[in-house]
């Protein structure tokens, strides 16, 4: 019997080594897998390349990784936020490399990796600093920039309901990067707030089919009830 369910967040992330590339879902606070990130911080892996939309805000989530100085490089679209002080200070000190990517290009490059494309031509960024030095092409009178896929060793994502085969549903705008990151990583680890028996999730409503998920972890456990309030609301 196949079960991708692991017992703890620590168990879920313990194989992430130093130097790994890690996608992390979320837009603002919605969809950020805080429990998995906390375990990654506790586990001590460093020198990470992180791919996500934001560079962390406040003290939790990606900000905690920044604070602990575990990130060598971040690939994201919108690092600057009112409370992104942990990223800001690392960046200003030259301790973290930033690859700034237009948000739609970030999504498309992640999708390209998951879908097996060698590269994509995208119109976004053409004629700007972010396309400097990149190959361009005019197709049907429109200008495009050649961009390469972004893949990762691991993806840490937050979903709502999962089953032992790894099928996932999401909640509202917390879906954001989860489904596409799940497709682009060698090992996708999902934190869910509910485990459903196999067959209980209506197949018509499954957003991420289990083929894209290697491990999942139920973060609704009683011992974590307090955190659930913030990170795992159902």
């Amino acid at each position: 019997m196949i079960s991708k369910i692991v017992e703890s967040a620590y168990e879920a992330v313990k194989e992430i080594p130093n130097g790994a590339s890690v996608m992390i879902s979320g837009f603002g606070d919605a969809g950020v897998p805080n429990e998995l990130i906390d375990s990654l911080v506790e586990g001590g892996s460093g020198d990470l390349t992180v791919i996500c939309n934001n560079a962390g805000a406040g003290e939790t989530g990606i900000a905690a990784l920044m604070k602990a100085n575990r990130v060598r490089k971040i690939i994201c679209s919108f690092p600057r936020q009112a409370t992104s002080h942990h990223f800001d200070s690392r960046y200003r000190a030259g301790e973290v490399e930033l690859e700034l990517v237009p948000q739609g290009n970030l999504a498309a490059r992640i999708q390209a990796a998951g879908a097996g494309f060698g590269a994509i031509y995208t119109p976004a960024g053409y004629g700007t600093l972010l396309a400097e030095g990149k190959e361009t092409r005019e197709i049907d009178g429109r200008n495009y920039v050649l961009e390469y896929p972004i893949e990762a060793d691991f993806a840490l994502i937050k979903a709502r309901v999962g089953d032992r085969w790894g099928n996932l549903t999401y909640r509202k705008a917390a879906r954001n990067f989860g489904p596409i990151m799940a497709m682009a990583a060698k090992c996708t680890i999902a934190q869910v707030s509910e485990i459903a028996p196999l067959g209980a999730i209506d197949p018509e409503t499954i957003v991420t089919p289990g083929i894209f998920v290697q491990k999942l972890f139920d973060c609704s456990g009683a011992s974590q009830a307090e955190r659930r309030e913030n990170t795992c609301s159902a």
Partner: protein
Amino acid sequence: MQRLSREAIAARVAKDIPEGVYVNLGIGLPTKVADFLPNDRDIFLHSENGILGMGPAPAEDEIDWDLINAGKQPVTLLAGGSFFHHGESFSMIRGGHIDICVLGAFQVSVNGDLANWHTGSADAIPAVGGAMDLAVGAKRVVVMMELQTKRGESKLVERCSYPLTGVACVSRVYTDLAVFDVGPAGASVVEMVDGLSMADLQALTQLELKPA
């Protein structure tokens, strides 16, 4: 001469948004446009983080942090609204499915170049978000901004000095003093606030302007 308040600019932008269109409102000033869309028109608001049919801010006790807009503020979902992932959301943008996008700007040039992501200053932390995707993807990109900087410099310019977000992508600029059309033919003045003359506006922008 009475400058339009930010709310009045938003109301003016809203006036040009017809029923049945799909609209993306950029973060910052453009978010205000939502407050002035008439309730009797079905207008579909898109949020880049995966929402169509976005509704107004929720009551305090109904805030749900899984339901936020691009500016990370809590919003609601209208009946008929939907959620989707980032790939689909930016396919809507890049694929030309969004009819109108309203963006803020540092500068817009008379030919429609947009600069709104980076001041170019060395110590600034750059952030681009979805601005470059919206600038090239939406069918019609309009800008909403105050015409002058705090120091009185025109933000409608011959050529942007700040790093560009998109090339020749803006078609209309709504400001506190006038509404301009921009594009290959240069800038033309659609309307001005009472008491302002074409000569005043030319002096203020240092641009060659013509009536629309």
